[in-house]
């Protein structure tokens, strides 16, 4: 793990402030940094102080009165959530007065809270239920009828049950402060207070569900999950989200093998409190009725017919053996959403068994160029390791340069962490983009390019002496205090007087910058970026943003025509010898075709067999159906995609949520997960790859993720990560930078999806919930 800078100094802290203050709680002497809230100091010392409205890292509310404690020399009880520890303070949290206050607080909160726990979704995981059990009274003095209000549906995924709401305002704060969406507010006052959605009777927002997650009761419930089960009937399995490249932990609620929800129950993944619409609701693709349940083989009449697994696998290997005998060409296209183990075994199958380097995947970030640049002396000079930042490093970053990309849409966790750094650590964010992205609102300075590309601008930043200063190329937008974004355009941007020069001069004042860049930068531009990063003071680190759950893993595992696992060049004899020894067989020396070249070869009728695993290349590069006849196409996926519809054999695969293994997020954090759901009829990609290898006479051993990961740890640059960290459910940063990787000669193969919050390739198309939210259709 990269070292994390110490906690940000309290704003305007007096220079002579003591390092710690000492105080007494229930007779124990405690110490905490000045400025620490009493509730936090007590919790850190395992002294329980109940609360509803207090939520760490959100603004203080002091609304629920549950955290009242006795502080000596103050006559009235104090809210521990707003009391700052002070030297010599004497606190009591378990006195009869405090107990009585808690009991009253619960009684008061329950005056109008319906006792419908047996039918409430939150029943069993409700903070009010737990607190009533622990601190509440058995009887209530309030015998007035309760005020009933019908529940409201605010969006396909958000329901609000007004009587259940205890007005803690956590939802309002997390939506505004955490998400910077400001879609929830408070209407009326006093007993009539209610939470309001931003469009009077409905919400228009990011549909992230953070409000539901943070609701301590069942006032906000999920439309995708409500009334389906009781929490205690499910197994809760920590999984890594199968959608974007950020690698959030989503806890699957699984009943009888069916994944009923994703949720952020224990908040101990790399994503902390955060989960977005995809991680929370997108899991329903696993239950889509069109999911493939049986292998399909195209029969004589041209129809895809269900067959047994044995028949399908033999059909494939029979054809493959024939093509091998005729010295035909094989192509293999791997997946950005399979596990590392599967990607590794797939390219092993291609290179060692099928004897081809025609291996590729859908690329969305130029990782080889980054590692190449980092391995060069110019890039590495005076820069300590690691030169990669993990996602959590953003939270404590002092300064971040964001070039290209739109994290709010494509990398919601990175965006959350950037907002966190801005809000809680005072980080300076610099944005360089052609688009007026939403993170402008947190930027200290945004260079909004009006001409040219991010790559041009980066080249200019790296080598100012070359070319004229692009005066007309950018305008600076200072962060406005404007909550209306994106409904209205920003105030007229003002040109930066000194152009990019000033942008660079400001960045040069920062230390320890983390540079996050999008797919706009490839090849030379990445080299230029690293040269620029190396010129900045302090320890510069990098994050490259790639699209899918295991885009980075696919790259690391060598799903490239010219790179072996760990970015070792296939043309390099020593690298080939290393893997040939490990795999017990030769590897072809000549670099193969990339994805587009493979599809073009199909069109030229030069590719005899194409094996597509968890990818949909024909959507990106359409192929002439007539030319497909001379190519034996095997597709293994969850759904009958465009590519699968053209296949000769289709194999039903299990999703990432239904298998064990490791995935690597876009920052390089390797995370391990266990199988959550199950699905009758399909197999894991690893089981299929191993079965095909076995039928072709190669023994890949048991299809066991742990066993394959041991091999990866031993063989792949950077993957000798800490197993303890993996088992603890934390991300372990893989830094495959030793060994010069050749720069990829095909930057045009970096083809990002530009997914929105609500789209996600094949999986997104089959998620009923992601398709149901109105913003998917109403936003450009």
């Amino acid at each position, binding site marked *: 793990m990269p070292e994390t800078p110490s906690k940000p100094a309290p704003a305007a802290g007096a220079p002579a402030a003591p390092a710690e203050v000492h105080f007494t709680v229930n007779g124990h002497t405690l110490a905490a940094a000045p400025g620490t809230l009493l509730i936090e100091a007590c919790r850190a010392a395992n002294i329980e102080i109940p609360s509803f409205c207090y939520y760490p890292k959100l603004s203080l509310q002091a609304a629920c009165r549950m955290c009242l404690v006795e502080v000596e020399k103050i006559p009235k009880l104090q809210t521990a959530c707003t009391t700052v520890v002070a030297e010599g303070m004497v606190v009591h949290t378990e006195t009869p007065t405090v107990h009585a206050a808690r009991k009253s607080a619960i009684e008061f909160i329950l005056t109008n809270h319906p006792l419908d726990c047996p039918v409430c979704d939150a029943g069993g995981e409700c903070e009010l239920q737990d607190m009533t059990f622990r601190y509440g009274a058995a009887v209530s003095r309030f015998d007035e009828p309760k005020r009933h209000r019908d529940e409201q549906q605010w969006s396909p995924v958000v329901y609000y049950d007004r009587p259940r709401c205890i007005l803690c305002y956590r939802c309002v704060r997390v939506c505004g402060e955490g998400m910077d969406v*400001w879609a929830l*507010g408070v209407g009326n006052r006093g007993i009539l207070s209610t939470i*309001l959605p931003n469009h009077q009777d409905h919400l228009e927002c990011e549909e992230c569900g953070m409000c539901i997650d943070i609701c301590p009761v069942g006032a906000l419930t999920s439309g995708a999950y409500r009334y389906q089960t009781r929490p205690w009937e499910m197994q809760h399995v920590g999984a890594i989200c199968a959608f974007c490249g950020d690698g959030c932990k989503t806890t699957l609620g699984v009943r009888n093998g069916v994944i009923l929800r994703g949720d952020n129950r224990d908040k101990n993944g790399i994503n902390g409190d955060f989960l977005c619409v995809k991680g929370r609701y997108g899991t329903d693709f696993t239950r889509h009725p069109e999911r493939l349940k049986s292998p399909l083989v195209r029969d004589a009449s041209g129809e895809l017919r269900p067959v047994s697994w044995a028949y399908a696998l033999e059909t494939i290997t029979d054809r493959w053996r024939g093509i091998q005998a005729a010295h035909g060409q094989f192509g293999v296209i791997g997946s950005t959403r399979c596990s590392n183990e599967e990607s590794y075994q797939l390219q092993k199958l291609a290179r060692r068994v099928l004897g081809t380097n025609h291996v590729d995947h859908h690329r969305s970030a130029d990782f080889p160029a980054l590692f190449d640049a980092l391995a060069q002396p110019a890039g590495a000079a005076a820069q300590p390791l690691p030169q990669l930042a993990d996602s959590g490093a953003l939270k404590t970053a002092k300064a971040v340069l964001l070039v290209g990309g739109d994290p709010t849409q494509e990398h919601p966790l990175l965006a959350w962490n950037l907002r966190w750094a801005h809000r809680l650590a005072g980080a300076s964010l610099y944005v360089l983009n052609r688009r007026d992205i939403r993170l402008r609102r947190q930027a200290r300075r945004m260079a909004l390019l009006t001409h040219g590309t991010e790559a041009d601008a980066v080249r200019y930043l790296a080598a100012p002496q070359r070319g004229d200063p692009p005066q007309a190329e950018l305008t600076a937008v200072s962060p406005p205090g404007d*909550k*209306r974004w994106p409904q*209205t355009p920003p105030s007229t941007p003002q040109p930066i007087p000194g152009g990019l020069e000033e942008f660079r001069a400001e960045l040069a004042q920062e230390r320890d910058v983390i540079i996050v860049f999008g797919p706009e930068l490839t090849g030379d531009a990445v080299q230029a970026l690293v040269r620029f990063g190396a010129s900045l003071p302090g320890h510069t680190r990098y994050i490259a943003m790639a699209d899918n759950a295991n885009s980075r893993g696919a790259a690391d595992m060598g799903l490239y025509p010219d790179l072996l696992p760990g970015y070792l060049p296939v043309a390099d004899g020593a690298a080939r010898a290393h893997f040939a020894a490990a795999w017990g067989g030769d590897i072809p020396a000549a670099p193969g075709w990339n994805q587009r070249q493979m599809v073009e070869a199909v069109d030229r009728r030069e590719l005899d067999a194409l094996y597509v695993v968890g990818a949909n290349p024909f959507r990106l590069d359409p192929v002439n159906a007539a030319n497909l006849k001379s190519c034996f196409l095997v597709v293994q996926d969850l759904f009958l995609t465009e590519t699968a519809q053209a296949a000769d054999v289709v194999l039903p695969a299990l999703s990432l949520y239904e298998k064990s293994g490791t995935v690597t997020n876009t920052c390089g954090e390797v995370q391990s997960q266990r199988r959550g759901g199950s699905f009758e009829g399909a197999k894991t990609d690893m089981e299929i790859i191993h079965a095909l290898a076995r039928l072709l006479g190669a023994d890949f051993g048991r299809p066991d993720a742990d066993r394959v990961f041991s091999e990866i740890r031993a063989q792949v640059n950077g993957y000798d990560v800490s197993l303890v960290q993996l088992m603890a459910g934390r991300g372990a940063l893989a830094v495959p930078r030793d060994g010069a990787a050749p720069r990829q000669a095909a930057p045009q193969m970096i083809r990002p999806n530009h997914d929105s919050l609500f789209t996600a390739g094949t999986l997104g198309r089959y998620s009923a919930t992601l398709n149901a939210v109105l913003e998917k259709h109403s936003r450009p």
Partner: protein
Amino acid sequence: MSVFSPATRDRFERLAASYPQPRSALVPMLLYAQDELGYLPPEAIAEIAALLGETELAVREVIGYYSMLRTAPAGRYHVQVCTNISCMLRGGEEVLAHCQRRLGIHNRQTTPDGMFSIEEVECMGACAWAPALQVNYDFHQELDPAKVDEILEKYRRQG
């Protein structure tokens, strides 16, 4: 297109610029807007939000909090009758009941011709001359039913 008169719009722009936080101008703006339009229609809320760089929701939150701000039209003459303690002791509730009988509407209702509306309000600082009522911004004090009739009739004649 502004929903406000040029003078009001101008005043709002000056108000919004005169505080370190533009939203500090929100409550006065809402009161002036309501004076001009009689209530706060969605277009006015949207325009004020845009002027202050706030969400419409943030404006609605404030409107919901203050009972004197309304999002539906009241009568041309908005009769606000105090029933707080001093007025209550001196017959404020009878004054309210009399207004309701005379105008044929209940609290928070408007006559069909849109002329009058009634609202029961809390203390308006006229305790020394209780019972009191307020019609728009005009005070009427030391009331009894006959005096109330006179007042209502005067407004009705004004039209």
